[in-house]
């Protein structure tokens, strides 16, 4: 029998199984290997909200999707070419996403009556032929194969069965022609103290690979060429980790001590975990009693001269509003990070959403403007984190950074940056030279940035008091004068607006005028870029602008927008950026709003654009 090798440009694989089946780990290993092989890639984990819902239940299904390609790609893919379903519930939840002609691989051992019932199947879909007309179905008794492969090992059957995800991984490695070595090395390191576990997993991995190689059911293998990525040294990086590195890089470059005040919350907790492990960089992390203590402890650290950070997700931001106002009026540098998730309230805590933009703009009493920027990809989290820190200390202001669950847990290949080449962050604390007529003036601003001086407690002769009551210009004393208040309210707004003066010209992907402009922010960047590429290929006059800064907006944005007949703003919310754009530029922008706890697909965007252009 001959197995043909077929070359394809891009592939989307989704691993799905019970929370206990190790799907995130399987996906992670596939990703690492794919990265090293040199494809471009993008990933999207999808966790259940329960820690561990009952085994086999629909609520307990966990999934991980990866798209990899020989081309430059921007999203983890809309629809999977291959779905690996480790149990009936996983099949039930994900089957509808697989397009006709797609491949489904199942662990038949898990399709027992109990699991079928839990998933709501009346009959076994692997046997009742319901799937065969639409999909290429591979029903494999992975559990038995693994137990065969491991039978001489001194391990309980339960433990052996846990290796079945590596069997699936091995099979996929074979199908897409990927080496096993890096996974074997990783297993050896990870379970250094448990050699039997290494052995069972390695055997399962190889058993899966060999099953593809030797059985006759698979007729095709696929190869995906290396992507033509810009030259450089690469690694794969997950958003929250990239963000943590960006913060640490800013601390190192600014020579400030990093202080994180935080309270755990999904999907932001990993930043706290990551920074907690970097004590050797001198980073201090403080798990506070709640979000309010998270931000206020950070504000205290900012007052005393640290690079202060607080991390959370939407509900935590709701709690931090009052303290943000205090940061605004005391003009202290503070980076506030919101890894957005599905709302309102507890909402869909493990799903992604972009619905906290307006909260970022307005979620506090009074006129309390805060600069806002958002990251566009997992790797970009590094750069926006760095940028947020740079702006915070340069302008003496709190800064809000928005990412989301999709960016936080997703990953992509990433050129390893050289921190020497990052823009400098020069911090000059106030000193004697800031004393005017024998008095330190804590609100005597720099002419260009309007930043006030940052005076570290412990510095001789700079004793001063700040607080939440309106401050007098220059002296910073408590002041109830109407004119001073009006002046200070406007000055604080102007200070934020001034940041626009240092933003680079806005990058337009595609022509600078045309029929339609897609305007995006945050994690929808990839889908918008893919859609634009496809539409342009299709001959449409479509361009794309992605905003890193939302407050302030770039100075040149207005001019750019009016060059297009239509402006489409896709968002995973009911229309938030679009409100800002319409109010600012009086342009009849159109929203594309899907609030489904997952990224908007490139296909949806394309479809929408076509409809608009047809009108």
């Amino acid at each position, binding site marked *: 029998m001959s197995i043909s090798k077929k070359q394809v440009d891009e592939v989307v694989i989704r691993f799905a199984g019970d929370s206990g089946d190790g799907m995130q780990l399987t996906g992670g290993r596939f990703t690492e290997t794919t990265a090293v092989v040199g494809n471009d890639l993008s990933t999207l984990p999808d966790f259940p909200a329960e820690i561990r819902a009952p085994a086999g239940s629909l609520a307990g299904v966990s999934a991980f999707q990866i798209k990899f390609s020989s081309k430059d790609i921007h999203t983890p893919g809309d629809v999977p070419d291959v779905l690996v379903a480790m149990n009936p519930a996983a099949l039930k939840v994900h089957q509808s996403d697989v397009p006709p002609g797609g491949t489904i691989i199942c662990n038949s051992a898990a399709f027992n009556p109990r699991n079928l019932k839990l998933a709501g199947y009346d009959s076994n879909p692997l046997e009742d032929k319901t799937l065969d007309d639409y999909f290429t179905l591979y029903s494999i008794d992975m559990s038995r194969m693994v137990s065969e492969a491991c039978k001489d090992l001194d391990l309980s059957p339960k433990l052996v069965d846990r290796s079945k995800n590596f069997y699936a991984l091995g099979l996929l490695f074979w199908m897409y022609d990927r080496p096993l070595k890096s996974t074997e090395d990783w297993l050896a390191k990870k379970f250094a103290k448990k050699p039997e576990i290494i052995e069972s997993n390695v055997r399962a991995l190889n058993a899966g690979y060999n099953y593809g190689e030797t059985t006759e059911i698979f007729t095709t293998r696929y190869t995906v060429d290396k992507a033509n990525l810009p030259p450089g040294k690469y690694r*794969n990086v997950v958003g929250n980790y990239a963000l943590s590195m960006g913060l640490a890089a800013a601390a190192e470059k600014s020579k400030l001590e990093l202080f994180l005040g935080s309270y755990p919350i999904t999907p932001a907790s990993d930043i706290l975990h990551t920074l907690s492990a970097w004590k*050797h960089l001198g980073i201090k992390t403080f798990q506070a009693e709640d979000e309010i*203590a998270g931000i206020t402890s950070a*504000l*205290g650290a900012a007052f005393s*001269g640290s690079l202060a950070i607080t991390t959370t997700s939407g509900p935590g931001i709701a709690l931090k509003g009052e303290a943000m106002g205090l940061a605004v009026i005391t003009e202290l540098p503070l980076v506030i990070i919101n890894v957005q998730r599905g709302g309102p309230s507890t909402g869909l805590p493990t799903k992604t959403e972009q619905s906290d933009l307006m909260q970022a703009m307005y979620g506090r009493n009074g006129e309390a403007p805060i600069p806002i920027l958002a990251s566009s990809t997992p790797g970009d989290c590094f750069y926006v984190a760095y940028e947020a820190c740079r702006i915070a200390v340069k302008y003496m202001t709190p800064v809000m950074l928005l990412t989301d669950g999709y960016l936080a847990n997703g990953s992509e290949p990433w050129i390893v940056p050289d*921190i020497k080449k990052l823009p400098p962050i020069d911090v000059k604390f106030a000193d004697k030279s800031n004393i005017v007529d024998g008095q330190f003036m804590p609100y005597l601003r720099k002419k260009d940035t309007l930043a006030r001086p940052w005076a570290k407690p412990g510095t001789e002769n700079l*004793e001063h*008091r700040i*607080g939440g009551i309106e401050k007098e210009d220059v002296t910073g004393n408590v002041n109830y004068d109407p004119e001073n208040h009006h002046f200070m309210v406007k000055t604080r707004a102007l200070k934020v607006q001034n940041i626009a003066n240092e933003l680079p010209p806005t990058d337009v992907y595609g022509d600078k005028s045309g029929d339609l402009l897609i305007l995006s922010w945050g994690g929808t960047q990839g889908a918008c870029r893919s859609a634009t590429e496809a539409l342009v290929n299709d001959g449409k006059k479509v361009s794309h602008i992605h905003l890193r800064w939302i407050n302030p907006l770039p100075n040149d944005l207005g001019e750019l927008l009016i060059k297009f007949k239509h402006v489409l703003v896709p968002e995973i919310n009911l229309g938030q950026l679009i409100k800002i754009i319409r109010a600012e530029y009086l342009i009849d922008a159109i929203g594309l709003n899907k609030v489904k706890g997952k990224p908007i697909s490139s296909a949806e965007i394309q479809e929408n654009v076509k409809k608009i252009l047809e009108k």
Partner: protein
Amino acid sequence: MSESSQVKYTRKDFTSDQAVRWCPGCGDYSILTQTQKVFPDLGRKKEEFVFISGIGCSSRFPYYMHTYGFHSIHGRAPAIASGVKISRPDLSVWLVTGDGDGLSIGGNHTIHLLRRNIDLNVMLFNNRIYGLTKGQYSPTSEVGKVTKSTPMGSLDEPFNPLTLALGAGATFIARTIDKESKHMQEMITESYHHKGTSFLEIYQNCNIFNDGAFSNFTDRDTKSDTVLWLKDGEPMVFGAESDKGIRLDGNIPTVVELGDKWSKDDLLVHNKKDYMIASMLSNMTSKPDTPEPIGVLYAIDAPTYEDNIASQISSAIENKPKSSIQDIINSGDTWVVK
């Protein structure tokens, strides 16, 4: 911490140029004065002091101290101060709060601060009322108190701040009174020297909205019979003629007359390291049959949070000296595209 052995400060050095804006006759004045009087003698550089407060009449305090200061938002001073001290263990950090600020909206931060034992000095101005918002009852107001928000009298049992602090794991609890200048100075000094969170409750008269709340303990004619001045290692004697004392009857503290039946030797001896004595003493607060315990009720040594974190960091650095974030950035599986 740097000793200011050279410089000799006076009260004026700790007085800011801001006009003091409490009501005439407010107990806050005396607390400010005692603080400004004691600070020159603490032997510490002036610029190393930081005052953090929340919101309330009492929380205006930092404006009047010529030190670093932060008048923040309602109830959050403990968290802000924690951030200051964790990030800068070299500073001497003081926290001024009220019974509303520190025990109502800020109660959670207060108890978590105490359990963490961060080396901060808490001064809780307890006037048993909300002063700044013009007279609502507070979590320390006695049951039945008629205020703007409780026209038929308040219903809930107040907190006993020292009992609460002890329950939260405090390592230092003490109490003083606005009118007792010298005692207050001693208490401020002891707070300063305690390593860990010192929790000092100050009975403070709000002569506008709760006048005379503590007159029992401050009036000439009553105070010697109503106040028990605590001295570590000494028997608990009180009374104008030092003729009364506290004796344990089972585990119940009881007032006895010294004389024929009981002598000093029968009295309970104060031991500020004894948790059960502290528990019993704090529980005597404002009870009809026992005098009010004033002084240091409890003080023990325990590691501080900020020292612990600093030592974790130094040992991490020792293990991986001269680390740079670049090392982490470079780590993991990498590959090169040419």
